């Protein structure tokens, strides 16, 4: 038992950036960075659909973000990988683009949830509800759905508004999701952490039930069958619905989200959130308007989720209530916990890793085993909830800060709620070491 514990501990305690130290000495750094970029690109182009290739390319991008080279070169090389190599591989096999869009969606979602959980310390288990909000706002008017309850649409746009609607709907989706965030936030703001978690869970379920049942008396959401087909966005007359072109929209969304998160973290608001997370009484004493800040975090996080919901609807051409279940909320939570609560880079890596695992490696494995008639017992896809569960437990026990902890404060998660007022008497060891 102890050996296992030790093994786990050491396996999980590698510092993420140690291997990147290779890249810190200026000249070797330059050579290695170029080499990594070239090798990854070559592999990616040679075997576009291979999960391993995508892993290498993304790994290279991560390594470059640590590399001790000139910042402009870093940006150029990463841009080359993300705007050159991956989209090109996507034209060779749209499966790559499809996977990457999904990854972008999850990264942005995880970043948004990280704002709420990691920065503000509010555990939200119903985060997917905002995502659903954005998806529905877009889909209802980008399909024949609107015509089912609005006479104007039936007369003028029976198949929906068309590709331009995506761009017009974007601010609307952000607003609707932000509004949902506030609507949920207002009643729960004064609740304690675990109550908040349960109520947000309930909120997620309620939104799902409403989406499922709002086909009567007026058919607004399409009910359980959902909405399909959903029109794709157009940009200057180009169809952006296929994975190869949608890739760019996704990338733009993610980059904007990441920049926004970085700015928020280092802004007055970010500091206020951090103060609130560590000690809300002290924060209030220092003049941080708690309710306003919490609502701001909720609304902002929600609006990111809503925006990505639109992209999701476009990618899927179809949405239904089942897609927005509790499991998805937990999946996103698992991503940020795996990556490192409060750490932007960590959250991105966590989301990417979970997406790769769930959408590439596990289905590959089960297809392989179906192909070769291997016993289905070794099929790891089957164990997905088990693996998620284990990730949560093991990370909590052995590495609460995630794979790439936030640099600003190492004991980030420890600050979620502040320590219990009374040290654990029974164990006696928990406070003094």
């Amino acid at each position, binding site marked *: 038992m102890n050996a296992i514990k030790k093994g786990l501990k050491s*396996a999980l305690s590698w510092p993420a950036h140690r291997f990147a130290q290779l890249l810190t000495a200026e000249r070797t750094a330059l050579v290695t960075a170029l080499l990594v970029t070239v090798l990854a690109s070559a592999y990616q182009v040679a075997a*576009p*659909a291979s*999960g*391993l290739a995508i*892993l290498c390319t993304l790994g290279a991008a991560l390594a470059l973000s640590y590399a001790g080279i000139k910042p402009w070169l870093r940006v150029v090389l990463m841009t080359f990988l993300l705007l050159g190599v991956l989209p090109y591989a996507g034209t*060779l*096999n*749209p*499966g*790559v*683009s*499809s*996977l990457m869009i*999904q990854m972008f969606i999850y990264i942005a979602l995880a970043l948004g949830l990280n704002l709420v959980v990691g920065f503000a310390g509010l555990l939200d288990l119903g985060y997917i509800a905002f995502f659903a909000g954005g998806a529905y706002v877009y889909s209802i008017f980008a399909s024949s759905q609107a015509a089912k309850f609005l006479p104007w649409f039936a007369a003028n746009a029976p198949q929906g508004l068309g590709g331009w609607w995506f761009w017009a709907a974007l601010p609307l989706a952000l607003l609707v999701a932000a509004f949902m965030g506030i609507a949920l936030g207002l009643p729960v703001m004064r609740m304690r952490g675990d109550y908040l978690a349960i109520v947000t869970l309930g909120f997620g379920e309620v939104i799902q039930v409403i989406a*499922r049942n709002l086909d*009567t008396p007026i058919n607004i959401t399409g*009910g*359980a*069958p*959902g909405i*399909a*087909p959903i029109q794709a966005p157009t940009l200057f007359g180009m169809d952006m*619905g*296929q*994975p190869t072109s949608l890739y760019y929209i996704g990338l733009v969304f993610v980059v904007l989200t990441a920049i926004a998160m970085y700015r928020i973290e280092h802004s007055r608001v970010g500091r206020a959130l951090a103060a609130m997370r560590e000690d809300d009484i002290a924060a209030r004493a220092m003049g941080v308007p708690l309710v306003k800040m919490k609502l701001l975090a909720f609304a902002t996080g929600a609006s990111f989720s809503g925006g990505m919901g639109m992209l999701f609807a476009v*990618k*899927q*051409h*179809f949405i*239904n209530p*089942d*897609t927005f279940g509790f499991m998805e909320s937990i999946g996103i939570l698992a991503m940020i916990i*795996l990556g490192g609560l409060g750490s932007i880079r960590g959250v991105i890596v*966590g989301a990417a*890793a979970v997406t790769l695992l*769930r*959408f590439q*490696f*596990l*289905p*590959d*494995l*089960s*297809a*392989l*085993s*179906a*192909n*070769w*008639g*291997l016993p*289905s017992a070794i*099929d*790891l*896809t*089957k164990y*997905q909830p088990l693996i998620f569960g284990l*990730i949560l437990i093991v990370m909590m026990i052995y590495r609460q800060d995630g*794979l790439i902890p936030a640099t600003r404060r190492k004991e980030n998660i420890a600050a979620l709620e502040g320590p219990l007022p009374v040290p654990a008497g029974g164990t006696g060891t928990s406070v003094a070491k």
Partner: protein
Amino acid sequence: MKRLLGALLSLSMILVIAGCGSASSNPCDNSGGKLIKVKIASITPLSGGQASLGTAIANGAKIAVLDRKAELEKAGFSLGCAPLDDQADPIIGGNMGSRAVGDKEVVGVVGTLNSGVAKTIAPLFKAPSLVMVSPANTAIVLTQSGYGSYNRIVASDAFQGAGAARATKDTVKAKSVYVLHDKTEYGQGFAVEYVKEAKKISLLVANGEGEGINPKDTDFSALITKIIASKADAIFYGGIYDTASLIFKQADEQGYKGYFVGGDGLDDPTIVKNSGNAANRVFYTSVADNVYGSEAGKSFVARYKKQNGPNDPPTYAVYGYDCAQVIIEALLSYGKQNPGKTPTREDISKLVRATKGFKGLAGEVSFDANGDNPVAKVYLFQVKDSKYPGVALGAIQ
């Protein structure tokens, strides 16, 4: 996580290497000689809750590839298969659809099991004209949305729902019916069509447009009290056998004396095992007659077992088989007309759509302009003596 990934990767590598070693026994391999390499992909759940159905479809398709291998080689094709796992999840399904598009050897796709997954995949196949033949989708919208290369061999909800409604009036002899569904794509779609037809043939629906329930619920006693008060002669349930049997059983316990009607979602031994005394009052429609009863069916079962182990295949296996056969027929007819040429996806898609009167194991297949199979049949079954499967009462017109 990296370690875990590493372990996963090395595991998959080992599997790949192990795979290459025994390449000859794999029906999905198409590496033979100078023939034109083509593949039929299947997109079904190979893992997760519905894996047994999805695997059956994939395996059925595989048997078809094996069965016609020699014939195809003569026509100049080396046909392989590519089973893809959608986990019954539209998100993963969309991914798999894109991967099927990306594999240039894939000329046709068998799938999907779930209508929701098909709604995500069909638009992806429209531009590359990749043909898709579904053994199981019943959502009406799929053939009404101009997806182009989408076809299915089973009857849609409209057909099944109407059939079930007529059976309720004519065979069950009910005057009024209480309509329930499980608020899923399948159950609700079915129930909506059922109600539509019921209104046409003046079968009274006791609760207006029908009501949804939560299939995760277990206690329906309050609802049943309401049903009994409505004095309906029959309860129709659009949904799956597990919840259906709970409702039927509890209704019986509370003293409901009427009949129970449902669709192919009830076609499972569980409906008999879990419904208690209610079982012998259950009628269900199904798109499949007892296919494994025939000689050809028995021979299929034997081949299936040889390839996939000792368990009897679920009915869906033969549907997967028929879907793949439809695509193979198109390939062969292309080969006949254009010997030595590599078919484009569009060619195959057109040829599949032109299928007329193909005699499949599970029934006849023709496609209309939308990709629906107008000759698909619906059969009515009744459970007797608490035995599964029920007694076939014949096809519904």
